[in-house]
């Protein structure tokens, strides 16, 4: 089943130099393993391909049901050098929530994961 992250997680993002960070938090604790399993470093790098210039790093915070992603080369130089509207990476959070993941039907049904995209 195809699920969009906006239906299973919330997020906040910020900046550190030219790197944006996105903290991705499961909406329900039982959905955290789904994030861990399917929102991989590689999948997120693919999602942001052409949007960021550098690599993606992922860290796990099971205590907060959260993953933290560092998106390097995301801010066009970062801080005051950046000409971007989102020079401080404030809405990379919802940019990540646009991402779709594929979850086996049985697993998705058992966890009552909402399917499809947000209206």
């Amino acid at each position: 089943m195809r699920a969009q992250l906006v239906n299973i997680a919330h997020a906040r993002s910020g900046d550190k130099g030219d790197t944006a960070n996105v903290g991705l938090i499961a909406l329900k604790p039982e959905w955290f393993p789904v994030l861990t399993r399917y929102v991989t470093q590689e999948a997120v790098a693919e999602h942001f391909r052409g949007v960021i210039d550098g690599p993606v790093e992922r860290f796990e915070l099971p205590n907060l049901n959260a993953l933290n992603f560092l998106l390097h080369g995301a801010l066009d130089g970062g801080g005051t050098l950046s000409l971007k509207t989102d020079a401080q990476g404030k809405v990379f959070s919802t940019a990540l929530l646009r991402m779709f993941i594929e979850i086996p039907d049985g697993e998705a049904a058992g966890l009552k994961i909402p399917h499809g995209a947000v209206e």
Partner: protein
Amino acid sequence: MKEVVRVASGQGFWGDSLDAPRQQVEGGPVDYLMLDYLAEVTMSILQKQKERDPNMGYARDFIGAMESVLPAVTERGVRVIANAGGVNPPACAAAVRALAASSTRSETLRIAVVTGDDLLGRIDELIDSGHPLANMDTGEPLSTIRDRVLSANAYIGSTPIVEGLERGANVVITGRSTDTALTMAPLRYEFGWGPTEWNKLAAGIIAGHIIECGAQCSGGNCLYDWRSIPDLANVGYPIAEAKPDGSFVITKHAGTGGRVSVQSVSEQLVYEMGDPHEYITPDVVADFTTIRLEQDGPDRVRVSGIEGRPATDKLKVSIAYRAGFKAVGTLVYAWPEAMDKARAADAILRERLDRLGLKFDQVLTEYVGVSATHGKLVGDGDHQEIPEVQLRVGVRGENRRDIERFTREIAPLVLNGPPSVTGFAGGRPKVEEIVAYWPALIDKRVVQTRVDIV
């Protein structure tokens, strides 16, 4: 020893709510009011102000905040801790002293001034004695931009603030203290935490991280169930209610809007996070993967279990330097075919800039309303039915005259470019000098802080 110490956050950045400091000291019991004014670029702005007037160089908003909380400080014993001193903490203290002179109980005001973080006057000496202040991201030594440096400040920790409190201060004014030290220092002072009680120090740092952005942990900018968050017009700023064992509760005053929940606190915890295993501060390395959160009644989140490790022997240094100029111009194009008109205008503008032979390091075009924030992630639709789109073009370069010339090329498009264009009431774009940020590390032992009571 107190059983509970309440630290209230009244300012998340310079420019935050003017009323929050007063609301925090009047809305219910608090022991400390913590005000964070400094962001990475703020120091350079303050440095420029100090160059123009040697009595400036601090966060002026703080004087108004102090005026609004003065009765709480002088009559009820609330203590204020703020990094409002910027690059001139003594001048900031003098301004507070002048303000208080007219109050009836000004003799009870004891102001501690923390200095020693400002390294601007020591850069050459430091480089000469083997501290290259290399850029943490690129590895380049500071000597490559030495002549463009505007400010240089070490991020200092909680120790000088604790000293100020021990010497009886009820207002502590620092320069570039870490945001988190402003909250941790009063807990260390009240509970007598030793300099190697790593878990407790880390807990104080994490309490600081949660409340340092003001209402951003108590319902502001909270994505989780955002529609249901009540009365943001009257949002309550956060309070950390800490205990001697290092556990604490994040809450807010009764009767205020917003919401303190596990979700709102979690969002703030991951804000600007790097490697969660090592949140490095001058006092301790905190491990964010050890934090336990639980809802402890409405608008109360209990935080416990935090672990920390010994601090490193380095301090981070925030250096600001001149890095050219930039300008951003915008125009709004309306239906029908708004997106095509905006794209055509961009192409025309770029052709004219080329013909003028202007030199830019970068020209960036964004379509606000379509793809400015999420870029390619919005897909390849033609977007032709959108009611309007804002064309936003930014340029950056070393030569101020070329940037100035760019600002003259936006307005003409209103009459000599594609149709259905508006939104130029703001006038010509402004040329801004870029002050860029250079993060570096330095040995702790070369930075000596000093505390004066004035």
